[in-house]
């Protein structure tokens, strides 16, 4: 057996022409695309890709970001067309930022996510952003020679530290769309002033796979509380003793469903918020602290109410309150799951906010 194994393996490889083996490609002549933007176009779809700043050799000066764009009937056609626009081999394996223009989002993001899921080089690990009030190509152009991948990476890192909007990967959004029927996506738009080339503009809400609307300001903060993300925020409260600033450090939200028979009769949303005193003239104690807590509670409740009001109006439970609550009643949840968006708009919602100040 051992004697025949090696010749047999060699013969198999030779007969197959080593066709099962991957193809080699040198990295020296690669242009590594980091950011991809997708918009609709008269031809079908407009794809724009940017490499970010590059270095020419070890001691070479930095080269400007390479930006390629192509309009074709399909995404794959556009990506292939971009190959011919560069001297280097355009490699899509490093695309970790995906921008979708508002117009395309209104038409549907599913084809883009499908393409990312199926392509060998691209993947659903890329961060997904909606470009509000502009096209993805505009957003990419806003970066100029430097590109925008650095700015997007900064937002992503800031988000992990709780000082920027929640970020989402294409995979997470795709999963939410498939399981919840809706998803929230952070929104950006080209900045009009300041150093930053892109400004945060709340969240876009996708229902089905189309853009339903945007949440910004107080409702956006409410969405962050519902999503249970590290919604770091400063709440300024004017007390008779003087102004006090409270920093929100964490939030944890749970939903509970009540049923009458098999029909949902109410949704209770409980949000536990952890805060920390950040600025004050005299440290609030006792009754003052209690009044402060009540004020913060009222503020956070208002945010959740405004967010929920809008989401219920759209029938988009994009934070999965119903699905989370349904885990306590699996059989009943199975019965209402398909119609949950309608139920979500109809069932009375009770909001409970518990604030702890440290």
């Amino acid at each position, binding site marked *: 057996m051992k004697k025949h194994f090696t010749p047999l393996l060699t013969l198999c490889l030779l007969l197959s022409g080593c066709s099962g*083996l991957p193809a*080699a490609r*040198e*990295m020296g002549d*690669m242009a590594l695309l*980091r950011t991809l933007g997708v918009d609709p176009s008269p031809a079908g779809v407009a794809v724009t890709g940017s490499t970010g700043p590059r270095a020419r*050799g070890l001691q*070479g000066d930095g080269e400007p970001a390479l930006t390629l764009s192509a309009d074709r009937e399909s995404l794959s056609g556009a990506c292939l067309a971009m190959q011919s626009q560069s001297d280097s081999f355009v*490699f899509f*394996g490093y695309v970790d930022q995906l921008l979708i223009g508002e117009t395309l989002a209104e038409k549907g993001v599913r084809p883009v996510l499908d393409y990312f899921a199926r392509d060998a080089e691209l993947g659903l690990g890329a961060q997904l952003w909606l470009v509000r009030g502009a096209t993805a190509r505009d957003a990419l152009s806003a970066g100029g020679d430097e590109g925008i991948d650095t700015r997007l990476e900064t937002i992503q890192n800031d988000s992990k530290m709780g000082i920027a909007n929640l970020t989402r990967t294409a995979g997470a959004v795709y999963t939410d769309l498939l399981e919840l029927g809706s998803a929230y996506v952070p929104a950006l738009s080209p900045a009009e002033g300041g150093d930053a080339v892109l400004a945060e503009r709340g969240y876009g809400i996708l229902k089905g796979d189309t853009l339903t609307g945007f949440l910004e300001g107080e409702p956006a903060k409410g969405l962050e509380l519902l999503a249970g993300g590290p919604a770091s925020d400063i709440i300024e409260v004017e007390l008779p003793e003087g102004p006090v600033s409270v920093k929100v450090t964490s939030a944890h939200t749970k939903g509970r469903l009540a049923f009458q028979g098999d029909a949902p009769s109410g949704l209770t949303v409980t949000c536990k918020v952890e805060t920390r005193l950040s600025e004050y003239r005299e440290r609030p104690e006792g009754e003052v602290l209690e009044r402060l807590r009540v004020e913060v509670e009222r503020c956070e409740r208002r945010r959740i109410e405004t967010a929920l009001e809008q989401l219920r109006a759209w029938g988009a439970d994009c934070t999965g309150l119903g699905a989370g609550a349904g885990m306590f009643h699996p059989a009943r949840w199975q019965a209402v799951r398909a119609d949950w968006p309608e139920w979500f708009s109809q069932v009375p919602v009770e909001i409970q906010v518990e604030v702890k100040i440290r």
Partner: protein
Amino acid sequence: MSRQETNAPHPRKEPRLPGPLSLARLEEVFSDCVDFSKREVFLHGDSQRRATVCYIDGQARTERLNDYVLRPLAQDPMLASVPEGELFALLERGALYAQAAKRETEVDPVAFALINGSCALFLEGRDDCLVFPVATEEKRSVGEPENEPALKGARDSFVESLRTNTSLVRRRLRAPELKIREHIVGRQSLTPVDVLWIDGIADPDTVALLSERLDAIDIDGVEAAGNLEEYLVDSTRSPFPLLPFTQRPDRFCQGLLEGRVGLFADGIPLGWLLPGTIDQFFKTGQDRAYHWLVASALSLIRWLCALITLLVPGLYIALVTFHPEAIPPKLALSIVAAKQEVPFSTIFEVLIMLLAFEVIQEAGLRLPGPIGATVSILGGLVVGNAAVEAHIVSPAVLIAVAIAGVAGYTMPSQDFGNALRLWRFLLAILASVGGLTGLALGCAGLIYHLAGLESFGVPYLAPFTTGTRVPRGHPSLFRLPLPRMKWRDGPVRTQNRRNQR
């Protein structure tokens, strides 16, 4: 004569020098031997009583010959007065100051006794002789083990003298159960080869098998370690060593205590321990000297380094050439920037650098110490740096090859490190053909190869397998506290598996 007859092994002649002994016959045997010497002596000045002493110059020690043989012959009055018929018996039973005296009547044993440093005493009118051991003990003194330095432990090492080596072992293992059996290997060299084991602990079957294989060796001489190793191992096709060896008596004794069988050959300053399993090649003499946590950490590092030296070049080729998406973006960007001005392909770069690394290493080893160091510095630093600056190789390749090379030096066994070096080339070539697929196939092939190896009935991968169905000692990747290492892990079978209460 047919070709088959020419190539057939000629039978060994026993005895090698047939026939009865006589001084003339002995002189005939050693004709054309400039170091053969004989001295005629009058017993106590009596010219009627003559004796002839024969010896090999350089093999016999002059002082012993003069003081313990020639001086009594010349000065003892009893030798002149004793009746003629009793003279021979008197010399045999104590007139001369030697630890042994043996009467010989055949030429064969006398010839070999002279070669081993004895002298032969012939009396006039008799053809038999008395053989007295007066061998010289000139040898290298016991020094420090250069290849296995000790920071915390004994500093003696084996030497070329077989008896010195067995004595170093005997001084550490004073139990009379330590057995030493001698075999003679080599038609022309007649090298004594000793098998050592502790009776009641070592596997008797392993001892018997080793003795059988030693007796089956029919070669001209034992001039190098390979003369024994390649005849004793089960498979010579594998580059992986199957017989671990050591220069350190303490480590050798530890092996015997684990139930292994030891082997010494005269003229080779090291001792082998068998059966050899893969974990033996990762152990150092210091493992039991350091704290168990430190020893375990160092052991894990050595295993990790074995993987690094084996896989890093192949992994670099596979990732950079076939699977760039698996490289972190910032590293990928710097690799792209570095590769842009390099004219060669990554595969060519890595293979050439691996080859260059071997060339520099070999050049450094073959040259005398100071020049070797200079060559290494020139080759490694200056040429490497110049090659990077001239964009002939990319710095990432240089780093990958250097990391692999340096990691290989952590192997306590040079033989095992050499095997890894060979497989490193093979895996790099496979990675350049099929990327990670090729590398994975190569690794599977390596495991298949290692799993097929055996050393004296014990699987080479015994520490990681249960093929023998016998629980073996203790973990091999790290070391437990010694009070918890209660089991011997040498042989498959032992009459006494537990080593402590």
